[in-house]
């Protein structure tokens, strides 16, 4: 989901030959597509595709809420999407222009309804989980052979964290990700909406915060791959990317991704069309193009994330569909939970709590 580099927008413009030709502007996460698909779209439809990337939901949201972003297709994550729908940032999809909707996976569609009731504004692009990335050899060195790498206790039990601090722990700098996990660890409702319940995570997180080297949402990819840290609580695809980078570098670092057995947050990145999109028609064509079974499979085969396209599964490579870190088995999936947005007042309290946990102030 989140990607490296602080690059606000690296522009990959694919073939802009004449100014008069039809254009569609797509704004997606960085490193999140097989670029051959972009050329293919141009060849099939004759529409110029201007492909632009971001690396945080917040940047996208700021552009949407400021208005006049100029994009035709954007890809926010579920919780952000639902608030942006409330703010009136998107237009309803014209489903008659999306024949490939029949390819979509009902199991995923049901879950995304939580953010977008009736899936009226959005279509799933990729989904994944938030879990534990470990440098397995270092963790075993510190905690012994039976280190609880598949349990939230690894990162929320101060006894473990105290030892792990010597080899380095990173956590996402996102209360929306860490607090539901801490609530799950405590046996509370992960999607708690009242601040009294949410507040219960404070002692847990305050106890482990001194052992967290950094709360950051993208640096852990490099840090894990280089062996600078031994544990990261982060997004599935990012950890898998770190795993691949370490394997490529052949530096003796071996990374594993584990979905905590207590349950983990499942997130969804959704394609949607801004209310002021200059070319809504072209946007529908692009979304329909991505929903093509082979195209969706090509994207997943390239980025190592699961997609919400059932029909694409027969075209997926074995190292994607067969990897339980990407496509978890049914039992694990039933253990994944989703969350909803906190209302602005609770959200402000949570942000404040988060600052207090991190800085002690």
């Amino acid at each position, binding site marked *: 989901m989140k990607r490296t580099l*602080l690059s606000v927008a690296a522009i990959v413009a694919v073939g802009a030959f004449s100014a008069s030709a039809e254009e569609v502007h797509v704004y997606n996460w960085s490193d999140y597509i097989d670029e051959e698909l972009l050329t293919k779209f141009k060849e099939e439809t004759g529409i110029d595709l201007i492909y632009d990337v971001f690396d*945080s939901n*917040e*940047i996208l*949201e*700021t552009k*949407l*809420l*400021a*208005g006049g972003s100029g994009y035709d297709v954007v890809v926010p994550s579920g919780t952000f999407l639902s*608030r942006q729908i*409330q*703010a*009136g*940032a998107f237009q309803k999809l014209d489903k008659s222009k999306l024949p490939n909707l029949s390819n979509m996976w009902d199991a995923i569609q049901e879950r995304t309804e939580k953010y977008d009731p009736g899936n009226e504004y959005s279509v799933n692009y990729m989904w994944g989980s938030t879990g534990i990335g470990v440098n397995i050899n270092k963790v075993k060195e510190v905690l012994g052979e039976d280190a609880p790498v598949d349990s939230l206790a690894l990162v929320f039990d101060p006894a473990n964290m105290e030892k792990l601090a010597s080899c*380095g722990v990173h956590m996402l*700098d996102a*209360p929306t990700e860490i607090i539901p996990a801490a609530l799950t660890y405590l046996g509370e409702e992960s999607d708690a909406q009242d601040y009294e319940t949410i507040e219960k995570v404070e002692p847990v997180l305050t106890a482990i*915060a001194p052992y*967290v*080297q*950094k*709360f950051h949402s993208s*640096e852990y990819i490099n*840090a894990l791959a*280089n*062996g*600078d840290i031994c544990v990261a609580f982060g997004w599935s695809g990012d950890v898998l990317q770190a795993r691949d980078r370490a394997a490529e570098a052949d530096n003796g670092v071996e990374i594993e991704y584990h979905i905590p057995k207590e349950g983990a947050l499942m997130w969804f990145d959704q394609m949607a069309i801004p*209310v002021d999109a200059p070319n809504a028609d072209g946007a529908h064509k692009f979304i329909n193009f991505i929903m093509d079974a082979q195209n969706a499979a090509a994207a997943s085969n390239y980025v190592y994330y699961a997609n919400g396209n059932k029909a694409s599964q027969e075209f997926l490579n074995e190292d994607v569909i067969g990897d339980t870190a990407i496509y978890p088995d049914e039992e694990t999936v039933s253990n994944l939970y989703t969350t909803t947005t906190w209302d*602005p007042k609770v*959200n*402000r309290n949570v*942000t*404040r709590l*988060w*600052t*207090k946990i*991190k*800085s*002690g*102030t």
Partner: protein
Amino acid sequence: MNLRRLFLILTPYAWLLLFFLIPFAIVLKIALSDYAISIPPYTPTLDISAGWEGFKEFVSELDAENFAFLATDALYYTAYLSSLKIALISTVLTLVVAYPIAYGMAQASQEWRPTLMMLVILPFWTSFLIRVYSWIGILSNEGFLNQFLLWTGIINEPLAIMNTQNAVYIGIVYSYLPFMILPIYAALEKLDESLIEAAEDLGCSKISAFWLVTFPLSIPGVIAGCFLVFIPALGEFVIPSLLGGSDTLMIGKVLYEEFFSNRDWPVASAVAVVLLLILIVPIVLFQRNEQRQREANQ
């Protein structure tokens, strides 16, 4: 008064209006608004078509409660104070590092000076962001510095520098060093050598000649350099977020959090307005100092 002169006088004021006062008015207006889930994410917005009545209604809905809110939570003044502390310490450190460099440059022979000057400016040809990023490669546990120190046997365990306050100081001192060196160098270069000779003739040792003659004459450069480092360091966001740890509390970070995490543009704007007011004090002092110097030179 002829037209040309009028033009010359008006240009800076027009500039100030266009690039400072109007943007400031927009930020202040948002600071006086209320949070809303809408586009844009605050209310009220000015409806020009409603004319004068609309404007009056718009003004009546503005209030200063966001500023009052900043006073209710210790977070904000702690962050302002912590930023002031970090900016002050970094300024002093930068001065300590920069002065000998500037002095050395001013002492160098004429043909060397342009080269040395070039070396100071050269890093600017690389993006600021990349230069800060490269410090991660130097300071991290597996970074060059620790690898080197481990290899020499000076340390047995890697030093934890990355993600601490010390890394922030290193980053700020490194990034702003040229802003300190250049004004000090400019002051030292103008220095009349015969003054030092005179001091030595009158029985001053080299060291006391430096403290009694050279240093006092370079003070205007020192002050200019300190302001050029202190002011941007106070609102710094990139360096603490890349090199600092989670406990590095700076107002730039608080501002980011208000804007992006809370999506509360009005409170974020209020934080920015207060930061600006804090900055205006040193900027005014800086201007006074410049003016006094100009008068002294005349």
